[in-house]
């Protein structure tokens, strides 16, 4: 029986590769610049914020729609639901009917939340 950390040692090695792999073209790009093959001529217009030719006005960071926060919050809650259901799903053959009833109550309570949310029109995107 192997250690869990050992299982994920491959992940650590892959992480190093994952950091190096996209860096290679960036390094190549930099080398091309050093050998004069890649241009770098910044000017005021080029380094300006792109906005289809017009100058950008006001701060970029505007206040966003509250809906986004609500969606993220509902996402977190259902994510947690999935996390609770996953172990039950894996242990399906040993928890059987007790597990089924418990899971059904669990889902029903959350589904009630979803119905409430629906009725209060929190799912409408306006």
């Amino acid at each position: 029986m192997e250690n869990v950390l050992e299982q994920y040692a491959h992940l650590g090695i892959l992480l190093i590769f994952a950091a190096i792999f996209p860096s290679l073209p960036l390094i190549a790009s930099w080398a091309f610049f050093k050998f004069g093959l890649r241009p770098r001529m910044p000017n005021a217009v080029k380094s300006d914020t792109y906005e289809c030719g017009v100058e950008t006005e006001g701060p970029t960071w505007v206040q966003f729609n509250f809906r986004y926060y609500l969606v993220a919050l509902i996402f977190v809650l259902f994510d947690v639901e999935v996390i609770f259901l996953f172990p039950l799903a894996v242990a399906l053959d040993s928890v059987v009917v007790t597990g089924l009833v418990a899971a059904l109550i669990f889902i029903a309570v959350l589904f009630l939340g979803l119905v409430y949310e629906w009725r209060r029109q929190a799912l409408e995107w306006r």
Partner: protein
Amino acid sequence: MSDFGFHLAFWSLAAMTIGGASMIVVSRNLIHAVIWLVLSMLGIAGLYLTLSAEFIAVVQVLIYVGAISVLMLFAIMLTPRAERDNSQHIKTAGPAGVVVIMVMIATMWVAIDTDWGAVREAALTEQARLIGESLIKHYILPFEIGAVLLTAALVGAIALARQDDEDAAVHAASLQAELDDDGSVDPVDVVDPPLPTDGEAST
């Protein structure tokens, strides 16, 4: 796994966690702070792996790194511009600091008191299954209470959102009334109806 591998993993992950955590405090920009928080949470997920807690580690990544951090990013985008700097002096910093230190002492007490060696040796390849079984056999009530808690959070979020909406509606109605009283201003001429964008503060 050799001892060297374990120590390498532990110390690099610990450095990542603590480094990320201190950068959260130091960085003045809130978005940067969230990105450091992501790094710190990933370090914690790695530390769970060194404790053979595979399921908890994956959940840490799925919930905290994947979901909570996005929630935080959206939350910061909702705050007014002036509050996006992390550098304001807060009057309650003293009491908050005391609470944090007390929690930290309690956590360290538990951490030192626990026999971690036993945990590290345990090779639990069927963790999800064991967690599922113990949820049903021993923790069925907390499990259901969890559902109620999640639903309560959902309802609370909607209550907040609806209040926001109703405030905006009241505001819009009063403004509309002002414009109607004036008579000379046709509402249509005030602002050209722009295309609906996500940037609308409220609708």
